[in-house]
Protein backbone atom coordinates (compact mmCIF):
# COMPACT_ATOMS: atom_id res chain seq x y z
CA UNK A 1 0.00 0.00 0.00
CA UNK A 2 1.18 3.52 -0.65
CA UNK A 3 1.51 5.75 2.37
CA UNK A 4 2.39 9.41 2.49
CA UNK A 5 3.15 11.50 5.56
CA UNK A 6 5.27 14.40 6.71
CA UNK A 7 8.24 13.27 8.78
CA UNK A 8 10.34 15.97 10.44
CA UNK A 9 9.02 18.50 7.96
CA UNK A 10 9.65 16.43 4.82
CA UNK A 11 6.94 14.71 2.81
CA UNK A 12 7.75 11.02 2.56
CA UNK A 13 5.92 8.54 0.36
CA UNK A 14 6.57 4.82 0.27
CA UNK A 15 5.07 1.43 -0.38
CA UNK A 16 4.48 -0.54 2.80
CA UNK A 17 2.66 -3.67 3.83
CA UNK A 18 -0.50 -3.00 5.80
CA UNK A 19 1.09 -4.71 8.79
CA UNK A 20 4.16 -2.43 8.78
CA UNK A 21 4.30 -0.62 12.09
CA UNK A 22 5.12 3.07 12.07
CA UNK A 23 8.31 2.45 14.08
CA UNK A 24 9.59 -0.04 11.51
CA UNK A 25 8.73 2.31 8.67
CA UNK A 26 10.68 5.12 10.37
CA UNK A 27 13.68 2.99 11.26
CA UNK A 28 14.00 0.64 8.32
CA UNK A 29 12.62 2.55 5.37
CA UNK A 30 13.51 6.12 6.35
CA UNK A 31 16.64 5.11 8.31
CA UNK A 32 15.52 7.26 11.25
CA UNK A 33 16.93 4.94 13.89
CA UNK A 34 16.70 7.46 16.72
CA UNK A 35 13.29 6.05 17.53
CA UNK A 36 13.92 2.86 19.48
CA UNK A 37 12.10 -0.46 19.62
CA UNK A 38 11.95 -1.59 23.23
CA UNK A 39 9.28 -3.82 24.69
CA UNK A 40 7.14 -4.11 21.53
CA UNK A 41 4.05 -4.48 23.71
CA UNK A 42 3.09 -0.83 24.21
CA UNK A 43 4.52 -0.57 27.70
CA UNK A 44 7.97 0.98 27.54
CA UNK A 45 7.53 4.08 25.38
CA UNK A 46 11.02 3.92 23.80
CA UNK A 47 9.29 4.23 20.41
CA UNK A 48 7.44 7.45 21.30
CA UNK A 49 7.13 9.97 18.46
CA UNK A 50 4.76 12.89 17.93
CA UNK A 51 1.87 12.23 15.55
CA UNK A 52 0.08 15.49 14.82
CA UNK A 53 1.70 16.85 17.97
CA UNK A 54 0.53 14.04 20.25
CA UNK A 55 2.92 11.62 21.95
CA UNK A 56 2.30 8.26 20.34
CA UNK A 57 3.82 4.80 20.69
CA UNK A 58 4.97 4.18 17.13
CA UNK A 59 5.15 0.41 17.76
CA UNK A 60 1.37 0.45 18.26
CA UNK A 61 0.41 2.37 15.14
CA UNK A 62 0.36 1.00 11.61
CA UNK A 63 2.28 3.10 9.12
CA UNK A 64 -0.90 3.26 7.03
CA UNK A 65 -2.77 4.78 9.99
CA UNK A 66 -0.35 7.71 9.82
CA UNK A 67 -1.38 8.50 6.23
CA UNK A 68 -1.44 12.27 5.91
CA UNK A 69 -0.12 12.81 9.44
CA UNK A 70 2.63 15.10 10.64
CA UNK A 71 5.21 12.94 12.41
CA UNK A 72 8.11 14.26 14.50
CA UNK A 73 10.89 11.96 15.67
CA UNK A 74 13.81 12.77 17.93
CA UNK A 75 15.86 13.58 14.81
CA UNK A 76 13.45 16.39 14.05
CA UNK A 77 14.00 18.33 17.28
CA UNK A 78 17.43 19.91 16.92
CA UNK A 79 17.53 22.93 14.69
CA UNK A 80 21.20 23.78 14.36
CA UNK A 81 21.42 23.54 18.12
CA UNK A 82 19.96 21.07 20.58
CA UNK A 83 16.30 21.35 21.51
CA UNK A 84 15.98 22.57 25.13
CA UNK A 85 14.82 19.12 26.21
CA UNK A 86 17.87 17.52 24.61
CA UNK A 87 20.03 20.16 26.28
CA UNK A 88 18.34 19.41 29.60
CA UNK A 89 19.14 15.70 29.32
CA UNK A 90 22.75 16.66 28.52
CA UNK A 91 23.09 19.17 31.35
CA UNK A 92 21.34 17.19 34.07
CA UNK A 93 22.55 13.69 33.20
CA UNK A 94 19.12 12.50 32.09
CA UNK A 95 20.49 9.36 30.52
CA UNK A 96 22.54 6.38 31.56
CA UNK A 97 22.36 3.64 28.92
CA UNK A 98 20.36 5.91 26.64
CA UNK A 99 17.89 3.35 25.40
CA UNK A 100 14.75 5.05 26.71
CA UNK A 101 16.09 8.54 25.99
CA UNK A 102 14.52 9.28 22.57
CA UNK A 103 11.09 8.26 23.86
CA UNK A 104 11.56 10.12 27.14
CA UNK A 105 12.56 13.24 25.22
CA UNK A 106 9.56 13.04 22.90
CA UNK A 107 7.16 12.56 25.83
CA UNK A 108 8.80 15.49 27.59
CA UNK A 109 8.45 17.67 24.48
CA UNK A 110 4.73 16.76 24.27
CA UNK A 111 4.30 17.49 27.99
CA UNK A 112 6.01 20.89 27.77
CA UNK A 113 3.99 21.83 24.68
CA UNK A 114 0.84 21.42 26.78
CA UNK A 115 2.17 22.70 30.09
CA UNK A 116 5.14 25.05 30.15
CA UNK A 117 5.52 25.01 33.91
CA UNK A 118 4.83 21.50 35.18
CA UNK A 119 5.29 20.54 38.81
CA UNK A 120 7.52 17.59 39.64
CA UNK A 121 4.37 15.51 40.08
CA UNK A 122 3.07 16.55 36.66
CA UNK A 123 6.42 15.69 35.08
CA UNK A 124 6.42 12.24 36.69
CA UNK A 125 2.87 11.62 35.49
CA UNK A 126 3.72 13.09 32.09
CA UNK A 127 6.31 10.37 31.51
CA UNK A 128 4.23 7.55 33.01
CA UNK A 129 4.17 5.85 29.62
CA UNK A 130 7.96 5.68 29.43
CA UNK A 131 10.07 3.17 31.32
CA UNK A 132 13.76 3.65 32.12
CA UNK A 133 15.51 0.32 32.60
CA UNK A 134 18.35 2.05 34.45
CA UNK A 135 15.73 3.52 36.81
CA UNK A 136 17.26 6.91 36.17
CA UNK A 137 14.00 8.76 36.67
CA UNK A 138 15.38 11.23 39.18
CA UNK A 139 17.75 12.88 36.72
CA UNK A 140 15.20 12.60 33.91
CA UNK A 141 12.82 14.73 36.01
CA UNK A 142 15.63 17.22 36.69
CA UNK A 143 16.37 17.32 32.95
CA UNK A 144 12.77 18.14 32.11
CA UNK A 145 12.70 20.83 34.82
CA UNK A 146 15.81 22.31 33.24
CA UNK A 147 14.17 22.29 29.81
CA UNK A 148 10.91 23.78 31.12
CA UNK A 149 12.75 26.70 32.71
CA UNK A 150 14.88 27.27 29.61
CA UNK A 151 11.85 27.23 27.35
CA UNK A 152 10.15 29.82 29.59
CA UNK A 153 13.24 31.98 29.21
CA UNK A 154 14.22 31.53 32.86
CA UNK A 155 17.42 30.32 34.45
CA UNK A 156 17.26 26.57 35.03
CA UNK A 157 17.16 25.32 38.63
CA UNK A 158 20.63 24.94 40.11
CA UNK A 159 22.24 21.55 39.68
CA UNK A 160 22.20 19.36 42.76
CA UNK A 161 25.84 18.45 42.16
CA UNK A 162 28.34 20.74 43.85
CA UNK A 163 30.93 20.80 41.11
CA UNK A 164 28.56 22.20 38.52
CA UNK A 165 27.01 25.57 38.05
Amino acid at each position, binding site marked *: *MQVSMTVNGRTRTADV*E*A*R*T*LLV*HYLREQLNLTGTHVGC*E*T*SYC*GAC*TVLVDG*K*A*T*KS*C*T*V*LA*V*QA*EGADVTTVEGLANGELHPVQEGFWERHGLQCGFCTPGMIM*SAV*ALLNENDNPSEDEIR*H*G*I*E*GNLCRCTGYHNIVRSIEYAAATMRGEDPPASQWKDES
Partner: protein
Amino acid sequence: MFPRQFEYVAPASLDEALSALASTPGAKVMSGGQSLIPMMKLRLFSPGTVIDIGRIDGLADIVEKDDHISIGALVRHNQTASDPTVAAHAKALSQAAGWTGDHQVRNRGTTCGAMAHADVAADQPAAAIALGATMMARSSSGQREIAASDFFVDALTSALSEDEILVELRVPKASNGSRSAYDKLGRRGGHTDYAVAGIAAWVNVGDDGSVTDARIGVTGVGTRPTLAEAAAASLIGTDGGEESIRAAAGLVTDGITVIEDLYGSVEYKTHLAQVFTERALQQALAG
Protein backbone atom coordinates in the same frame (compact mmCIF):
# COMPACT_ATOMS: atom_id res chain seq x y z
CA MET B 1 7.41 -8.24 16.12
CA PHE B 2 4.61 -7.48 13.71
CA PRO B 3 1.19 -8.89 12.89
CA ARG B 4 0.39 -11.59 10.38
CA GLN B 5 -0.62 -10.23 7.01
CA PHE B 6 -4.09 -8.79 6.70
CA GLU B 7 -6.17 -6.72 4.34
CA TYR B 8 -6.51 -3.11 5.46
CA VAL B 9 -9.44 -0.96 4.55
CA ALA B 10 -9.98 2.60 5.74
CA PRO B 11 -13.51 3.62 4.72
CA ALA B 12 -14.36 7.29 4.47
CA SER B 13 -17.93 6.86 5.67
CA LEU B 14 -19.82 4.83 8.23
CA ASP B 15 -22.05 3.29 5.56
CA GLU B 16 -19.00 2.12 3.66
CA ALA B 17 -17.52 0.65 6.85
CA LEU B 18 -20.77 -1.14 7.72
CA SER B 19 -21.11 -2.65 4.28
CA ALA B 20 -17.44 -3.77 4.32
CA LEU B 21 -18.06 -5.33 7.73
CA ALA B 22 -21.21 -7.11 6.57
CA SER B 23 -19.57 -8.47 3.45
CA THR B 24 -16.21 -9.56 4.93
CA PRO B 25 -16.36 -12.60 7.18
CA GLY B 26 -13.98 -12.36 10.13
CA ALA B 27 -13.23 -8.67 9.62
CA LYS B 28 -12.27 -6.69 12.71
CA VAL B 29 -13.10 -3.06 13.38
CA MET B 30 -10.24 -0.89 14.63
CA SER B 31 -10.55 2.59 16.12
CA GLY B 32 -7.41 3.60 18.05
CA GLY B 33 -5.87 0.14 17.84
CA GLN B 34 -4.21 0.39 21.26
CA SER B 35 -5.50 -3.03 22.34
CA LEU B 36 -5.98 -4.62 18.93
CA ILE B 37 -2.49 -3.96 17.51
CA PRO B 38 -0.63 -5.43 20.53
CA MET B 39 -2.85 -8.54 20.33
CA MET B 40 -2.14 -8.83 16.61
CA LYS B 41 1.60 -8.37 17.17
CA LEU B 42 1.59 -11.11 19.79
CA ARG B 43 -0.45 -13.12 17.27
CA LEU B 44 -3.08 -13.82 19.85
CA PHE B 45 -5.49 -12.61 17.20
CA SER B 46 -5.04 -12.48 13.43
CA PRO B 47 -8.04 -11.07 11.60
CA GLY B 48 -8.01 -11.46 7.81
CA THR B 49 -9.25 -7.91 7.36
CA VAL B 50 -8.93 -4.83 9.54
CA ILE B 51 -11.51 -2.11 8.99
CA ASP B 52 -9.99 1.12 10.28
CA ILE B 53 -12.81 3.49 11.20
CA GLY B 54 -10.31 6.20 12.14
CA ARG B 55 -10.88 8.23 8.97
CA ILE B 56 -14.64 8.55 9.25
CA ASP B 57 -15.79 12.12 9.87
CA GLY B 58 -18.26 13.03 12.57
CA LEU B 59 -17.44 10.34 15.12
CA ALA B 60 -14.84 12.20 17.18
CA ASP B 61 -17.07 14.54 19.15
CA ILE B 62 -18.48 14.76 22.65
CA VAL B 63 -21.88 16.43 22.38
CA GLU B 64 -24.14 17.59 25.18
CA LYS B 65 -27.77 16.67 24.46
CA ASP B 66 -30.95 17.33 26.46
CA ASP B 67 -30.75 14.31 28.70
CA HIS B 68 -27.45 12.68 27.84
CA ILE B 69 -23.88 13.19 26.71
CA SER B 70 -23.01 11.61 23.39
CA ILE B 71 -19.48 10.20 23.06
CA GLY B 72 -18.63 9.30 19.48
CA ALA B 73 -16.78 6.17 18.41
CA LEU B 74 -13.51 8.03 17.79
CA VAL B 75 -13.38 10.10 20.98
CA ARG B 76 -9.97 9.41 22.56
CA HIS B 77 -9.47 8.54 26.22
CA ASN B 78 -7.69 11.87 26.79
CA GLN B 79 -10.62 13.72 25.23
CA THR B 80 -13.10 11.97 27.53
CA ALA B 81 -10.81 12.56 30.51
CA SER B 82 -10.40 16.29 29.91
CA ASP B 83 -13.92 17.19 28.75
CA PRO B 84 -15.63 19.53 31.24
CA THR B 85 -19.14 18.28 30.40
CA VAL B 86 -18.15 14.69 31.04
CA ALA B 87 -16.49 15.75 34.30
CA ALA B 88 -19.61 17.63 35.42
CA HIS B 89 -22.12 14.89 34.61
CA ALA B 90 -20.14 11.66 34.68
CA LYS B 91 -17.18 12.08 37.00
CA ALA B 92 -16.65 8.31 37.20
CA LEU B 93 -16.15 8.08 33.43
CA SER B 94 -13.89 11.13 33.42
CA GLN B 95 -11.68 9.58 36.11
CA ALA B 96 -11.71 6.13 34.51
CA ALA B 97 -10.69 7.59 31.14
CA GLY B 98 -7.85 9.54 32.76
CA TRP B 99 -6.52 6.36 34.38
CA THR B 100 -6.76 4.21 31.26
CA GLY B 101 -3.43 3.00 29.88
CA ASP B 102 -0.80 5.72 29.90
CA HIS B 103 -0.49 9.14 28.29
CA GLN B 104 0.45 7.86 24.82
CA VAL B 105 -2.26 5.19 24.88
CA ARG B 106 -4.84 7.80 25.94
CA ASN B 107 -3.83 9.96 22.98
CA ARG B 108 -4.89 7.26 20.54
CA GLY B 109 -7.16 4.73 22.23
CA THR B 110 -10.87 5.48 22.24
CA THR B 111 -13.53 5.29 24.93
CA CYS B 112 -15.89 3.35 22.65
CA GLY B 113 -13.00 1.09 21.62
CA ALA B 114 -12.41 0.23 25.27
CA MET B 115 -16.09 -0.71 25.54
CA ALA B 116 -16.11 -2.86 22.40
CA HIS B 117 -12.84 -4.54 23.39
CA ALA B 118 -14.47 -5.55 26.72
CA ASP B 119 -11.31 -6.34 28.63
CA VAL B 120 -12.05 -7.86 32.04
CA ALA B 121 -9.91 -5.22 33.75
CA ALA B 122 -10.69 -2.11 31.70
CA ASP B 123 -11.66 1.00 33.64
CA GLN B 124 -14.27 2.78 31.56
CA PRO B 125 -16.72 -0.15 31.26
CA ALA B 126 -17.18 -0.09 35.05
CA ALA B 127 -18.07 3.59 34.84
CA ALA B 128 -20.42 3.02 31.91
CA ILE B 129 -22.47 0.42 33.77
CA ALA B 130 -22.51 2.41 37.02
CA LEU B 131 -23.68 5.52 35.16
CA GLY B 132 -26.44 3.60 33.38
CA ALA B 133 -25.00 4.37 29.94
CA THR B 134 -26.34 3.07 26.65
CA MET B 135 -24.35 1.66 23.73
CA MET B 136 -25.54 2.58 20.24
CA ALA B 137 -24.74 -0.31 17.91
CA ARG B 138 -25.13 0.19 14.20
CA SER B 139 -25.19 -2.33 11.36
CA SER B 140 -26.13 -1.95 7.71
CA SER B 141 -29.67 -2.93 8.71
CA GLY B 142 -30.10 -0.24 11.37
CA GLN B 143 -29.26 0.90 14.86
CA ARG B 144 -30.10 -0.62 18.24
CA GLU B 145 -29.55 0.40 21.84
CA ILE B 146 -27.82 -1.90 24.28
CA ALA B 147 -27.82 -1.10 27.99
CA ALA B 148 -24.24 -0.95 29.27
CA SER B 149 -25.17 -3.51 31.92
CA ASP B 150 -26.08 -5.99 29.14
CA PHE B 151 -23.12 -5.12 26.94
CA PHE B 152 -20.26 -6.95 28.65
CA VAL B 153 -21.00 -10.61 28.05
CA ASP B 154 -17.74 -12.32 28.96
CA ALA B 155 -13.97 -11.80 28.80
CA LEU B 156 -13.21 -9.82 25.60
CA THR B 157 -16.77 -10.46 24.46
CA SER B 158 -19.37 -7.76 24.04
CA ALA B 159 -22.99 -7.97 22.96
CA LEU B 160 -22.11 -6.50 19.53
CA SER B 161 -22.96 -8.73 16.59
CA GLU B 162 -20.28 -9.41 14.02
CA ASP B 163 -21.81 -6.90 11.63
CA GLU B 164 -22.19 -4.11 14.20
CA ILE B 165 -20.03 -1.13 15.06
CA LEU B 166 -20.31 0.70 18.37
CA VAL B 167 -20.89 4.19 17.02
CA GLU B 168 -21.72 6.09 20.18
CA LEU B 169 -21.85 5.87 23.95
CA ARG B 170 -24.70 7.75 25.59
CA VAL B 171 -24.22 8.72 29.20
CA PRO B 172 -27.22 10.11 31.11
CA LYS B 173 -26.74 13.63 32.41
CA ALA B 174 -26.58 14.05 36.16
CA SER B 175 -29.63 15.37 37.98
CA ASN B 176 -29.45 17.46 41.15
CA GLY B 177 -28.77 14.64 43.57
CA SER B 178 -26.73 12.29 41.43
CA ARG B 179 -22.98 12.01 41.34
CA SER B 180 -20.33 9.39 40.74
CA ALA B 181 -16.72 8.42 41.28
CA TYR B 182 -14.24 5.78 40.13
CA ASP B 183 -11.27 4.45 42.07
CA LYS B 184 -8.88 1.60 41.44
CA LEU B 185 -5.61 -0.10 42.17
CA GLY B 186 -3.64 -0.35 38.93
CA ARG B 187 -1.38 -3.26 38.10
CA ARG B 188 1.68 -1.00 38.28
CA GLY B 189 0.50 0.59 41.51
CA GLY B 190 -1.49 3.75 42.07
CA HIS B 191 -3.85 4.34 39.20
CA THR B 192 -1.50 3.15 36.47
CA ASP B 193 -2.29 0.31 34.07
CA TYR B 194 -5.29 -2.02 34.02
CA ALA B 195 -7.27 -2.38 37.24
CA VAL B 196 -6.41 -5.18 39.65
CA ALA B 197 -9.68 -4.00 41.14
CA GLY B 198 -11.68 -0.97 40.05
CA ILE B 199 -14.99 0.32 41.33
CA ALA B 200 -17.31 2.91 39.83
CA ALA B 201 -19.98 4.20 42.18
CA TRP B 202 -23.05 6.19 41.18
CA VAL B 203 -25.47 7.49 43.81
CA ASN B 204 -28.55 9.62 43.89
CA VAL B 205 -29.06 11.48 47.13
CA GLY B 206 -32.43 12.91 48.19
CA ASP B 207 -33.07 16.31 49.76
CA ASP B 208 -32.91 14.76 53.23
CA GLY B 209 -29.47 13.31 52.51
CA SER B 210 -30.60 9.72 52.18
CA VAL B 211 -29.51 7.53 49.29
CA THR B 212 -32.45 7.11 46.92
CA ASP B 213 -30.67 5.11 44.24
CA ALA B 214 -27.25 3.57 43.66
CA ARG B 215 -25.28 1.54 41.16
CA ILE B 216 -21.84 0.04 41.64
CA GLY B 217 -19.75 -1.15 38.68
CA VAL B 218 -16.95 -3.64 39.34
CA THR B 219 -13.98 -4.33 37.06
CA GLY B 220 -10.75 -6.30 37.27
CA VAL B 221 -11.80 -8.95 39.74
CA GLY B 222 -14.19 -11.12 37.71
CA THR B 223 -14.72 -12.31 34.16
CA ARG B 224 -16.44 -9.14 32.99
CA PRO B 225 -17.37 -5.66 34.19
CA THR B 226 -20.43 -6.28 36.36
CA LEU B 227 -22.97 -4.42 38.45
CA ALA B 228 -22.77 -5.27 42.15
CA GLU B 229 -26.50 -5.35 42.66
CA ALA B 230 -26.69 -6.55 46.25
CA ALA B 231 -24.18 -3.95 47.40
CA ALA B 232 -26.02 -1.12 45.63
CA ALA B 233 -29.41 -2.30 46.94
CA SER B 234 -28.09 -2.35 50.51
CA LEU B 235 -27.20 1.32 50.24
CA ILE B 236 -30.61 2.52 49.08
CA GLY B 237 -32.63 4.06 51.88
CA THR B 238 -29.61 4.54 54.14
CA ASP B 239 -28.00 7.81 55.19
CA GLY B 240 -24.88 6.97 53.16
CA GLY B 241 -22.79 7.08 56.32
CA GLU B 242 -19.68 5.09 57.15
CA GLU B 243 -21.61 2.10 58.41
CA SER B 244 -23.81 1.73 55.35
CA ILE B 245 -20.79 2.21 53.08
CA ARG B 246 -18.96 -0.57 54.91
CA ALA B 247 -21.99 -2.83 54.72
CA ALA B 248 -22.31 -2.24 50.98
CA ALA B 249 -18.60 -2.89 50.45
CA GLY B 250 -18.94 -6.23 52.21
CA LEU B 251 -21.47 -7.32 49.58
CA VAL B 252 -19.62 -6.07 46.50
CA THR B 253 -18.46 -9.43 45.17
CA ASP B 254 -21.78 -11.19 45.86
CA GLY B 255 -22.77 -12.91 42.64
CA ILE B 256 -19.38 -12.22 41.02
CA THR B 257 -16.96 -15.07 40.34
CA VAL B 258 -13.69 -13.56 41.51
CA ILE B 259 -10.82 -14.87 39.37
CA GLU B 260 -7.30 -15.45 40.65
CA ASP B 261 -4.66 -14.19 38.22
CA LEU B 262 -1.07 -12.95 38.08
CA TYR B 263 -2.09 -9.88 40.05
CA GLY B 264 -3.70 -11.48 43.06
CA SER B 265 -5.47 -14.31 44.81
CA VAL B 266 -9.23 -14.50 45.15
CA GLU B 267 -8.94 -13.32 48.78
CA TYR B 268 -6.72 -10.37 47.88
CA LYS B 269 -8.86 -9.23 44.97
CA THR B 270 -12.04 -9.60 47.02
CA HIS B 271 -10.45 -7.46 49.71
CA LEU B 272 -9.36 -4.85 47.17
CA ALA B 273 -12.86 -4.72 45.68
CA GLN B 274 -14.23 -3.97 49.13
CA VAL B 275 -11.63 -1.31 49.89
CA PHE B 276 -12.21 0.47 46.59
CA THR B 277 -15.98 0.21 46.97
CA GLU B 278 -15.62 2.14 50.20
CA ARG B 279 -13.36 4.72 48.59
CA ALA B 280 -15.48 5.18 45.47
CA LEU B 281 -18.68 5.47 47.53
CA GLN B 282 -17.08 7.96 49.92
CA GLN B 283 -15.98 10.12 47.01
CA ALA B 284 -19.34 9.89 45.24
CA LEU B 285 -21.31 10.66 48.38
CA ALA B 286 -19.01 13.55 49.26
CA GLY B 287 -20.00 15.00 45.86
